[in-house]
C-alpha cells in the first residue's frame, strides 16, 4: 500500500449524487470514514440509505461525485471489481445461494479471495485453505450444526447470520451491512450485535440500521441522512445532542436508546 493509500480514509464519498429520472435521491453526500471505524448511517425511511449503499458497492452507478476506497477511485467500477478491492456488503433482503448448502455458500464466498478465480483444474475437495476458511466462518456465525443444510431451508435469523458470514468470508477490510437486525426479536438482535462486533473486529464497518439501541451500542460515529443529504456526522453523544437532528428526525432516538 502506498503512503497516500495508508493515510487516506478507508471509504470516502465526495459530492455523490444519484437521480432516478427527474427525482434526485442522493443530493450531494460527503463522507470520510477512517480505517477501523464503525460507522452507522441512520435516517427516516426513504432518506436514501440503501441507495447510498448501492452506489458505494457498484450496484448502481452514481450520477455525479466520486467514491474512493483506500484513496482509490471506485466510482465507475462493477460490483465484482469493487469486491476484489476489499469492499464487501450484505443486503437488507436476504441474498444467499438458496440451493447450495450453508458450507457451500461460504466456500463460494472465499474462492475468489484465495485466488482460485475461474479454475476448472482444481478439485474443490482438495482445497484445504478454502474449506478451512469456510469452516472458520461457519463456526464464527454459529451455524456449524447447519453445515450441510440447503441455505434456503434455514430459519430467517439463520439466513441473516449466513448473509453476514458470506459478506465477511472473503476477508474484505471494508464491510457494509444493510440493516443486519431487521425483522429480528430482541434476543436475536443482541446475538447479531455480538456477532457483528466479533467478526468485524479490526475492520472498517459501515452499517445502515433502524434499531437505535444497536446503533448507539456499536457505532463509533453516526451520520444522519435526511432526504439524500447528510444532516450531521459525529460521535453518538454529539448526534444525541444535535438540535438539528432532533428537529428533523429524532425524538425517537432518545426513547429507543433509553430502552436498549
Amino acid at each position, binding site marked *: 500500500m502506498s503512503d497516500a493509500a495508508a493515510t487516506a480514509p478507508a471509504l470516502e464519498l465526495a459530492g455523490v449524487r444519484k437521480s432516478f429520472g427527474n427525482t434526485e435521491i442522493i443530493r450531494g453526500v460527503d463522507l470520510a470514514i477512517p480505517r477501523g471505524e464503525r460507522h452507522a448511517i441512520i435516517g427516516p425511511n426513504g432518506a436514501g440509505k440503501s441507495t447510498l449503499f448501492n452506489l458505494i458497492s457498484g450496484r448502481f452507478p452514481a450520477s455525479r461525485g466520486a467514491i474512493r476506497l483506500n484513496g482509490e477511485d471506485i466510482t465507475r467500477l462493477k460490483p465484482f471489481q469493487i469486491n476484489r478491492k476489499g469492499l*464487501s456488503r450484505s443486503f437488507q433482503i436476504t441474498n444467499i445461494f438458496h440451493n447450495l448448502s450453508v458450507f457451500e455458500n461460504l466456500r463460494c464466498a472465499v474462492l475468489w479471495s484465495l485466488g482460485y478465480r475461474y479454475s*476448472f483444474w482444481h*478439485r*474443490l475437495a482438495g482445497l484445504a485453505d478454502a474449506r478451512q476458511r469456510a469452516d472458520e466462518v461457519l463456526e464464527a456465525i454459529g451455524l456449524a450444526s447447519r453445515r450441510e443444510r440447503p441455505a434456503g431451508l434455514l430459519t430467517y435469523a439463520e439466513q441473516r447470520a449466513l448473509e453476514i458470514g458470506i459478506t465477511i468470508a472473503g476477508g474484505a477490510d471494508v464491510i457494509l451491512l444493510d440493516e443486519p437486525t431487521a425483522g429480528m426479536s430482541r434476543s436475536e438482535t443482541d446475538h447479531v450485535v455480538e456477532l457483528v462486533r466479533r467478526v468485524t473486529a479490526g475492520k472498517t464497518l459501515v452499517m445502515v440500521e433502524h434499531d437505535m439501541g444497536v446503533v448507539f451500542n456499536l457505532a463509533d460515529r453516526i451520520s444522519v441522512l435526511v432526504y439524500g443529504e447528510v444532516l450531521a456526522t459525529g460521535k453518538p453523544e454529539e448526534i444525541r445532542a444535535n438540535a438539528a437532528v432532533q428537529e428533523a428526525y429524532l425524538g425517537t432516538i432518545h426513547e429507543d436508546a433509553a430502552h436498549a
Partner: protein
Amino acid sequence: MRYQPINLGRWLIWGATALLMAVLPLIFTQGFAITLLSQMGIAIIFTLSYNMLLGQSGMLSFGHAVYSGLGAYIAVHVLNLASKGQVWMPLSLLPLVGGLAGAFFGVLFGYVTTKRAGTTFAMITLGIGELVFSCSLMFPEFFGGEGGITTNRVFGQPFLGLTFGPGVQVYYLIALWCLASMAAMYAWSHTPLGRMANAVRDNPERAEFVGYDTHKVRWFTLIISAFFAGIAGALACINFEIVTAENVSAIRSGGVLFAAFIGGVTFFFGPIIGACLFVYFVVALSDHTKAWLLYLGLFFMLMVMFAPGGIASLIVMQLPVIARGRFRSLLPHYARTGAAGLLVLAALVLTVEMTYKVSVDSANGTAMTLLGVDFDAAGTLPWALAGVLWIVGGWLFHRAWLRLSHTWGEIQAEIAGARA
C-alpha cells in the same frame, strides 16, 4: 486428512458403469443393438454437456446443436483430409478435433449469448441457432447443402488390428470417449468454476458481490460445455459417416432439451438416463410406429406435469424410503399402479394406432397387426376393446394411485417424525 465419506461408493459406481459399457455389446450382439448403444453413448455426452448449462448454471439454451453440429462439420472435413493423406489424424483422436472446434465456436458465440442470463440468453441462443442453420444452406461448400458431407471412417493402416469398420469397434471408441467425458464433466462440477456456476444459477447478483464476474462464469462454462458437445458431434460423424444441416438444426437443439428434462436436470446422472430413453424413443420406437413423436410428446408432457425433476428425482425420492426400510411396503402399490398403468397404456396405443391406420394409412386396407395379433381397424370389436381398456384401466389406475399416495404420505410423515 481429507474427509471424503462416499469415495468408495463413487469408485464402485464408476467401475460398474465402465463394466456395463464394456459388456453390453457382448450381451446384445445384434447390429441393431450396437447401433442403439452407440447412439446412446453419443447422446449421453451431448445431454450431459447440455446440462452443464441448464441444470448446473441455469442457462436454458435453444441452440446447443450449434456446437455439436459445427464440431461434427469440422470433424468430417478433417476426416476427409486425413483419408486423403493431407493431414495426420488418427480416427480415435478425431473427437478431440470436434471438441476443440465446439469450444472455438463456444468462445465466439458464447461471448455474446452469455452476456445475459434467463430469457434473454434463451432468445439469443435461438437466434444464433437459426443463424447457423441458415448459413448451412448459404455455404454449400462447407455444409454440403441438402445432401450434407459424407465420409468414410475406414482409412490408412489398421491400428492394433482396429479398422473401425465394424460397428462394434466404433461402439467401443464411443464408449471410451463417453466414459472419459462423463468423468471429466463430473469432475468439472466439483471445481471452483463448476461450483460458482451453481452459485450464479442460484443468485447472480450475490455472485458478483463475492468477486465473480457472472458473464465470465457463464461464458467459460459454455465454452467447456461446447467442447463436450463438439466431442459428441465428432463421434456422430464417425458413427453415421455423414453430417447434414440437421446436425445444427433447432430440432436437434430441442431434442437435447427433451432428453435432459426427461432424465432430470437437478442430478448429475439424470441426463444420462434421459439420453438413453430419448435415443430409445427416437431410434427404436420410430421403427415400430409412425406415431412415435406423439408418444414422445405425451411422455414429455406427463414428465413435466407430474415429475418436473425428471426420472432422476423419482429415483432419488425412493432413497429415504429405502433407508427407512419401508420400500418393501411400497412395492405392491408400485406393482398395482404399474399394472393398471400398463392397461391405460394399452388403451392409448390401441386407440392411437387404429386411428393412424384408419385416417392416414387406410389406402392399404384397414387390416393391421399389433403385438402379433391381426385384426381389422375398421371393425367394432377392437374399438370396443379399447373403450373397455380405457374405462377399466383408468378406474384401476385411479384406485391404485390413491392408495399409493396414501401409503407414500404415511411413510413421509413417519420419516419426518423420525427426523424431528
